[in-house]
């Protein structure tokens, strides 16, 4: 999407611990947690990066 940077949620289990911190803080409600799978709605995401800070283990990157 033009003007929008890539959002990458590392959810293979190498970093993500599926705690839901990002889901709860996301002001746009565009992150979903389903047991051990995190997905996000790229169209709704504004790249505000609040989830990046809220993640206790650094599993979310915006490049």
């Amino acid at each position, binding site marked *: 999407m033009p003007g929008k940077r890539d959002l990458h949620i590392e959810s293979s289990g190498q970093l993500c611990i599926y705690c839901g911190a990002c889901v*709860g*803080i996301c002001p746009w409600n565009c992150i979903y947690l389903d047991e051990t799978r995190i997905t996000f709605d790229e169209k709704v995401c504004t790249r505000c990066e609040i989830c990046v800070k809220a*993640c*206790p*283990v*650094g599993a979310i990157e915006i490049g």
Partner: protein
Amino acid sequence: MAKDLRTDVLVVGAGPAGSMTAKWAAKGGARVLMIEKRQEIGSPVRCGEGMSKDWLTEVGIRPGPWINLEVEGARIYSPSEQVLEINERSAGNEVGYVVERDGFDKALAIDAANAGVDVMLKTAATEVLRENGRIVGVRAKQFGEPFEIRATVTVGADGFESQVGRWAGLPTNIAMRDMDSCLQYRMTNVDCDVRYCDFYLGEVAPGGYVWVFPKAEGLANVGIGVQVSKIKGIAEPKKYLDAWIAQHPGYAKGKTIDVVGGGVSISPPIKQSVTDGLMLVGDAARMIDPLTGGGIANGCIAGKICGEVAAEAVHAGNPSHELLQKYDKGWRVRLEEKLYRNWLAKEKLCTLSDETFDKIVDALQGTKLEKLSVHNILKAVHAKYPEVTREFEAFL
């Protein structure tokens, strides 16, 4: 395709607040269905597992095998690690048990089931159903099969990342300064003291604290909460926790057997917890104590009120905003003043330097506080370091 269901009260989420709500609604004579998206109630645990105990009788919970141990008190460590010891009574029973949260959640769900509540696992709500502006249940999926659950009253007990509250348009959004990002290791082979829950304040955990809650000799939950607005880089809660452990030889030698993360709201009380046909309870309603980060007691206390009002609405055949407002009023009478006061205290504490924390703990060490309240603390600090309390005069 799974069969559509119809019930009096639908509770989304089978944590402590959900099970409490479900149990008290069933005891009030309503047909209750509680759904849980996970495959196992109480697991995986996302909790420090320390809790107070004076409220248990109020909501009808009897102590059970989920108690790991009973502590004598809390120890608060200033940044220079002067220790303030608080026995259980003067802490206002804020400390008490360290528990096995998965066992606790299951015990509450069993209580609810014994009261007549139906439970469905692996069942996630996917959206709320609306009719004439009123919420009349949810669309759900069980093992991937979509179906509808219609209910006279729907209760969102779906935790910190509550979707039900957002779908219903209730004001559950939280600011970055009103959330702590948390990480915890369960560590074995550590030098914990089973008599105390320990709290470490200051720059070791900006806007939060490091906790050590003992679960047995040599076994403890060692965790951290950091205020999200104070986080500047990637994975800071983990870096802070790892740094704290590295600086404490009694823990650095330990071995981690479990990692737990999560968000904790440290916000002022929510402005509205009900709408036509729907109530929110527990972490979903931002009921966590903003000072301690504890959510179980408040969730259970509000859950009892929520269940009672749900049953009443079912009997009246009227789940209107006005009737459900009785729940909103009820939990506010019981919890709101303390939530608000502790939020204000948290806002202040977040601004204190390590030097000020040291002075506060130093001033309190020599005094005997009858009861640990913000007012009593400030009085004691004022006597020794009047300059520290200058900006707290509103509390005095």
